[in-house]
């Protein structure tokens, strides 16, 4: 039985095809303005017997393609704990939200926290700031690693932080130091969130932002345990969603 796990996020649609618990294929597409159609391309390959959707588009996907839906929290918990059986916690920084998850035995979610209705500390935040600094995301991360110290950024709100960054640039502040400061501010916020759910190591850092080396370095530096980054960090949600069907997990069948 082949299961298609779909993670329909704000920035990307990730797909994983699973057979007998093993990944046989995976793919990633931009969500664009019509994530449903992006997902349809994967569904239309017809290489699956069942679909489990996750991500903010999970309900729309379930209605359009059938199958079941599961939240990103559960999907990331399941996915991360299968990739790393000793994982005790998960950090997922996606395009528009950040989740921290504490795992119990067997990868069961015991506590979680999610940012609420703003983009503070998410992939979107980094994108906006890179634009304000005239960097690509990759350049900003590189600069963030190179700079020995960061400028302190006090705003967490994406809009306010953008003004703050513009102000710093106009004052002639070094862009690399600003880049580092931005990464540090997200790391600080994320680390306190991890503390609130009492996250223990090893921590699996997944989601699109886990591909950012500056963020990974800063989280690893500030977290008390081991930090593990999956090879395909972006597809952990889709993988977990597909697995949740196999495990007869909490995927809801409505």
């Amino acid at each position: 039985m082949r299961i298609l796990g779909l993670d329909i996020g704000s920035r990307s649609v990730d797909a994983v095809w699973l057979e007998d618990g093993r990944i046989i294929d995976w793919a990633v597409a931009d969500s664009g303005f019509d994530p449903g159609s992006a997902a349809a391309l994967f569904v239309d390959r017809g290489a699956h017997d069942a679909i489990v959707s996750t991500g903010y588009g999970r309900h729309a996907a379930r209605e359009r393609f059938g199958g079941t839906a599961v939240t990103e929290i559960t999907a990331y918990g399941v996915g991360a704990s299968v990739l790393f059986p000793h994982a005790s916690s998960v950090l997922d920084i996606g395009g528009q939200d950040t989740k921290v998850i504490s795992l119990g035995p067997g990868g069961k979610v015991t506590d979680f926290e999610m940012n609420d209705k703003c983009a503070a500390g998410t992939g979107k935040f980094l994108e906006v700031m890179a634009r304000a600094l005239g960097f690509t995301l990759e350049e900003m991360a590189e600069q963030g690693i190179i700079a020995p110290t960061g400028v302190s950024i006090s705003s967490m709100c994406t809009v306010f932080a953008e003004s703050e960054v513009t102000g710093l640039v106009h004052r002639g502040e070094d862009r690399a130091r600003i880049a580092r400061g931005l990464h540090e501010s997200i790391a600080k916020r994320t680390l306190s969130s991890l503390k609130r759910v009492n996250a223990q190591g090893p921590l699996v850092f997944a989601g699109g932002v886990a591909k950012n080396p500056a963020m990974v370095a800063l989280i690893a530096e500030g977290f008390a345990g081991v930090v593990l980054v999956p090879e395909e960090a972006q597809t952990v949600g889709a993988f977990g969603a597909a697995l949740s069907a196999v495990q007869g997990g909490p995927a809801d069948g409505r």
Partner: protein
Amino acid sequence: MSDETVDYHPMWAELGLDLPTHDALLGAVGQLFGDAYLTQQNRPEGMGYLNFVMSEVHGLRIKELDDYRKSGGKVFGTFCLYVPEEIIRAAAGWCVGLCAGAEFAYDQVEQIMPRNTCSLIKSFMGFKLAKVCPYIESADLVIGETTCDCKKKAYELLGEMHNVFVMELPQMKRDVDMAMWRDEIRALMAKVEEVTGNTITAESLKAAIKEVNDKRRALQRIAATRAADPAPISGKDALLATQVAFYDDVPRFTQMMNALADELEARVAAGEGVAPKGAKRVLVTGTPMALPNWKLHDLIEKAGAVVVGEEMCTGSRYYQDLVSEDATTLDEMVSDIAEKYLDINCACFTPNQGRLEDVVRMAKALGADGVIDYSLQFCGLYEMESNAVEKAVRDAGFPVLKITTDYSMEDVGQLATRIEAFLEML
């Protein structure tokens, strides 16, 4: 939502409502009600009465108030549980809750109060400023209370537009506070007697105590059936019953709720429920949910769980305690009323250990799988107390999800994810 055969527009115009805006509001509330309530499966038949009340919430009920006032009766508007309905009824006054619970005319509200004020206060002021609440326009007197700093100041603003009488509620529950609170109740008696022109007697107060207790007893019966698995009534419907309790005619409401309770008890005996047996059960605690605020219950129940209790002012705090019916003199009755009302465990008190005990006791008694702690954003009291609630609930072995939100719908996607993930975790 008005009855198609009766045009209430002349009555609304006479009350000074802004008719086009009011029509738009009724349309929005009607749609909200349809989406949240009429889509539910296996509802008890007794809910038909509450559907009807909702369809006439600005119609027939306002007509009743209007007729009563035209015959010389007086109507009192309240915003809070601490205002004793018994006192008002003992002077032949009618007590109604006032409109709040939906985001309305915030642009006007924000001209007179800070943007970061809680939704409840912004909402009631919005309804007043936009002239769309027929209850406040029917109220001869609005009785406020000093339950939080923002409300205190809001009543000053409201006082510029309406007759307002404010009761001073103590913040602690010591003997001196009780003595002060008894005096406040006596001051309310004097005010109500002045407005109605009627004298409160031991007989009339005794009868009012009995009548309001009977309303609470009916709601207690409904609440008790929710301990059954499957739950015989949805959390949304039970919440609606409590919300309507603030507005409806007391003896009629009591009779209809007892009939609903009969039906629910029969459903429990027959093992019938609104959600399948084994559906996840959630206790909700926190700030009141004024009509038509059904946002959280709707999200929880559309995710497949059932809300089995509300430890809130639109919930157990409204009906769990009765006023003693043993007193024979007016003084004793005032003391009994003071005692019962000071016993309500609102976050405006310090300390407020009683609320933590209530939450844990209810979670156990109702067989909850988890607890959702709900705070309105900028409600400093409940947001602050949330930490103690979380700890008490966790220590008792229940998972807890903390939600801070407002009346807007902009965060429903995020909230749905958090609630569904919480349910998957249980």
